[in-house]
């Protein structure tokens, strides 16, 4: 866990290498967390910065305070039970902090 604070003041809870689990939530609205990755565990590849929350922006609100955004790397073989590829194959997804929990 990192105590790093993004320029907006919202603390970044995770840092590169941390294992995280994507919340398995089904909420209405403009959600940027793809359905296929919810509930899966991956590793923080990088902190991308802080960006206005698209779930608020979509309804003409400010989206502030900006939320930390991460690229999270998942093992394809864990995401898709029938994955036909190499064990090292990966899928990287951009996920906002409020969709992530420590794993």
């Amino acid at each position: 866990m990192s105590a790093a604070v993004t320029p907006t003041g919202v603390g970044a809870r995770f840092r590169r290498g941390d294992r995280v689990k994507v919340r398995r939530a089904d909420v209405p609205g403009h959600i940027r967390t793809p359905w296929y990755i919810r509930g899966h565990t991956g590793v923080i590849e990088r902190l991308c910065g802080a960006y206005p929350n698209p779930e608020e922006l979509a309804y003409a609100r400010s989206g502030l305070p900006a939320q930390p955004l991460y690229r999270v790397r998942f093992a394809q073989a864990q995401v898709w039970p029938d994955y036909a590829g190499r064990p090292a194959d990966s899928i990287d997804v951009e996920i906002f902090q409020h969709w992530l929990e420590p794993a």
Partner: protein
Amino acid sequence: MTHDHGHPHAGVRPDADDTLSYYQVMEVAVRELLVEKGVLSADAVRREVEKMDARSPAQGARVVARAWADPAFKAKLLELGNDALVELGLERGPYKLVVVENTADVHNLVVCTLCSCYPRWLLGLPPDWYKSRNYRSRAVREPRQVLREFGLDVGADATVRVHDSTADMRYLVLPARPSGTEGWSEEKLATIVTRDCMIGVAVPRAGSGPGS
């Protein structure tokens, strides 16, 4: 003029713009209102469309060719993509550019499963297939099969990394410089870097330029 003259005609194929979708009607309505109220001019809208259409993968090809020729530029491109674009006189762009590098062991593929996110300011408009449900759903789930359908066999020894552009990053694949291009000028190198190579569904080859 009447067509009621005694013999049947085959149906005339309707023009593509015969009927407007819900969102097309909304776009026309909003645009006309903005013009009527003096917020924008019709010419300003036209100029923006023209500017968008003038952007092309040739810009991205210049970036890749420079990265192949200049290790310092390549390091900057991988670390701070937007700054590297400015160094080449290109637009910084409205989104953060993430450049992912193909090597002998790693092949990268870019997709936007939610819509059609794409580094448009750098590469121009995305190809139609990039926006198709088929590509968007299958590139994440069976990338090796999708790549085979594009004519690219990545090989069992290489790792495939898929990048789903779900939020505020935009992605450019930096292909590996192919053998047989030693001593080429940047201009010549750029000719073999196509749009598909920068999305990751193809790789450049010394003989793959349009003039070959």
